């Protein structure tokens, strides 16, 4: 399978990669938000 074929996913590329992009943003976003929440708590605990 060539690189171009892999990206195109048999012309379903938008749907397949779109799904995984949204998943990455959602899971990554959850981690980042929680990390910020923790940071904020640690800072307020030091005050």
């Amino acid at each position: 399978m060539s690189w171009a074929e892999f990206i195109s996913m048999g012309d379903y590329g938008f749907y397949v990669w779109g799904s995984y992009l949204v998943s990455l943003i959602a899971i990554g976003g959850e981690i980042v938000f929680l990390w910020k929440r923790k940071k904020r708590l640690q800072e307020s605990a030091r005050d």
Partner: protein
Amino acid sequence: MNLYKYAAPANFYPLAGKLIPWFAIPAAILFVVGMYIGFFVAPTDAQQGDAYRIIFIHVPAAWLGMFLYVLLAIYAAIGWAFNARLASMMATSLSITGAMFTFLSLVTGALWGKPTWGTWWVWDARLTSSLILFFLYIGFISLQSAIEDDRRADRAGALLAIVGVVNIPIIYFSVEWWNTLHQGATIRILDKPTMAPPMLAAMLIMLAACWLYSVAIVLARVRCIILEREQNVARLAEARA
């Protein structure tokens, strides 16, 4: 060892901290392995072409959305019935991750529906009951954040969560009870799987990854909730950890 000791938030806080890497690291490894098998080992589907590869995130997200809701309701009920603060905090922590996975199942489902059914959305039983699940999560989260007093928020949330459990079997059996565009269950416990082994393997590995991820992130969030709600107790725990 006295396990009941860990029902106290101050004792659970350091334990949760120690447990997180044991779930987070295997989750990260299994995500990579699952995606590798899903995209490089699993063959193209005879009927759906490569569009079916959405299944590796869609099905785990949908299962986790349902499973975490049941878990949320159980924790909320325990928190209410036994006045157990930590159980209520677990319910609150679960709600965000459950809502995230349910949102993902809806979005990836729409992205799968468009090329295979020709439409992003239909108001059929499976899709509508999944949307209701998402609204139940949103309702739980907004209800809790609208009530100032933590324990009152826990009780109100528990009532909503317990009533909402009725929706879970409706989602699960919707493809059998009603005519629907949505395909039937991919896995049935008693039947032989209907998928090629590498497809099934990729899906189950991704399911395990999502499950491990959920445990890690819910434990990490419940630590934040303990700190927010029980400032003094939590500081003591921090000092001991």
